[in-house]
């Protein structure tokens, strides 16, 4: 299965005050939203300034664990501090609230899905998009987002990584299409998963990039949707890439090809 990337945006947490940036630089109303929504909308604003978005584009938000912060916040209000549930905290609890703000920012009125899986998150969503675009003949926007909650221990426990693993927040977007025309890169993937031995037969292990979850190489800080970040980085650095994601003893492969090189 192949999807073509028309454009992309990436942000990995570097200490930027995103709320302030959204208000001052992008003139976006940030009221009633939380950190998770701000991060998603910031990535959307970065993408919007780079490419044209059609109102009919399909929108897919995906995350390894979703918005853990807001669950902790609402419970603390209701039970620890005996405060009433705040209306917008309740609304922000729901997955498609983030999708709503992203759709608003991008001007999208097409299909809008919030999908979570704590394993093969990016590949799973690419598969959803590929199967949908075959029928709809539209383009799609994918937003992959992971926010580190406070304290970090919570998210590490949810992700199933050890205390020493460095985790980081990140948001990545790609405009995807089944059509090659105007593409800057392509990504190849499928549902097949491999054992480590089979994987070694399939790819050059020395040249491949691995999710830090795989415990094979740990070049970068971890977040569940890191595959999308690495694809964007490969496009930016004008190179092809083989990326391996893993969960327990299963491995899946994504191949990204920089179309501008060929």
């Amino acid at each position, binding site marked *: 299965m192949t999807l073509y990337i028309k454009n992309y945006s990436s942000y990995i947490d570097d200490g930027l005050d995103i709320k302030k940036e959204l208000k001052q630089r992008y003139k976006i109303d940030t009221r009633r939203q939380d950190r998770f929504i701000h991060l998603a909308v910031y990535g959307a604003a970065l993408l919007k300034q780079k490419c044209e978005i059609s109102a009919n584009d399909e929108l897919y938000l995906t995350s390894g664990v*979703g918005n853990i912060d807001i669950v902790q916040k609402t419970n603390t209000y209701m039970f620890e501090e005996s405060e009433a549930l705040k209306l917008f905290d309740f609304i922000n609890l729901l997955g498609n609230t983030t999708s709503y703000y992203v759709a608003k920012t991008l001007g999208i009125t097409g299909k809008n899905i919030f999908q979570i899986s704590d394993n093969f998150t990016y590949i799973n969503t690419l598969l959803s998009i590929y199967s949908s675009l075959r029928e709809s003949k539209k383009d799609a926007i994918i937003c992959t987002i992971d926010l580190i909650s406070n304290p970090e221990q919570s998210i590490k426990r949810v992700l199933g990584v050890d205390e020493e693993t460095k985790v980081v927040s990140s948001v990545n977007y790609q405009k995807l299409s089944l059509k090659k025309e105007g593409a800057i890169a392509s990504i190849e993937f499928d549902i097949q998963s491999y054992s480590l031995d089979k994987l070694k037969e399939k790819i050059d292990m020395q040249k491949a990039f691995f999710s830090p979850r795989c415990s094979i190489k740990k070049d970068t800080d971890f977040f569940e949707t890191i595959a999308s970040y690495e694809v964007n980085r490969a496009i930016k650095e004008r190179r092809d890439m083989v990326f391996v994601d893993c969960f327990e003893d299963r491995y899946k492969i994504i191949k990204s090809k920089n179309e501008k090189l060929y």
Partner: protein
Amino acid sequence: MKSYINSYELLCDAGDVKALMDAIYAKESAITVDKTYIEDATAGLGIMQYEDIYTLLKEVVSKVLKESNLEDFHNTLLILGSSVGGMQECEEIFYAQKSYENIDPNRYSMNALTDYLEKEFGFYDSRAISTACTSSANAFVLAKRLIEAGAYENILVVGADGLCKSTVLGFYALSVLSGDKCRPFDKNRDGMNVAEAVAAILIQNQKKENSIELKGVGASSDAYHMTNPNPDASGAISSMQDALKDANLNPSDVEYINAHGTATIANDRVEAKAVEEIFGIDAFVSSTKAITGHTLGAAGAVEAIVSCEAIKRSLIPPQANLTELENKNINVPLEPVKMRVKNVMSNSFAFGGNNTSLIFGECI
């Protein structure tokens, strides 16, 4: 490649599939008018008695596996739709201990229920959809597309949501919660009933005896307002028309619409307008949420089963709790209608203008 519904089961406040259908046709609401959940107010709630939602999930999914032609789910994709995932258990522990210390973070994320089922049954792949009240309906959309693409042969769609303080109090804060049993499409309706349920449906690319076909899916997002649908009904109309187009059917081919019908002022007015515009009085329409309450992320799956049962039984569900119909240009039956039901549309709509329509039909 076509998608066939080959086995299913559910548990909700009215009971299992048989008990629910009996309640629907008898117009016996399973809603409880609760005086304890909210301080100084009554709330119509769909409450179940069970140990924990994980046990409930295992029970329902085990039944579907037993009724299927599969020995296990090792070659099956799991797509679970839920609005709040494992929040119920997290709330209970936090409420009792006023601390997060003893909460397993793996059991409060949106995909906690998916994780549990994946480990329990060994699914090949899994994912969770969380789009509030369209969550499990969107799981059907995805399932149909994945089967068409030849990616999977077997997909288990699960809709699951347990009753949580956060959701009940959240809808109360939004002033859309009825203090009584809800009255979909009634002129004097005063809001919805939050409820809980677990429903599981096995979708396969192979037709079996008694299969129902998932013929069409449509989804749209009108992004009009965070909690209200566009009053011109364009979002609902778009998803319904997309589903008809996907099924290659005309409105006259659909005999029954299982409405989203939450009994909120905004939803029912807009949904009735959309049904009026597309179907007029040619199709029967009713909301079975008058019996079950609104099971949130599970609603799409629960109502998919109701839709399949209406086809199999050749019996259209009547509207319960209806005294005076608000929109008289739609066809809402007050009693069960015995007739051949070839195609049923099931609507699910959610916050953020997220709209999903599914069409189930008899296999020819």
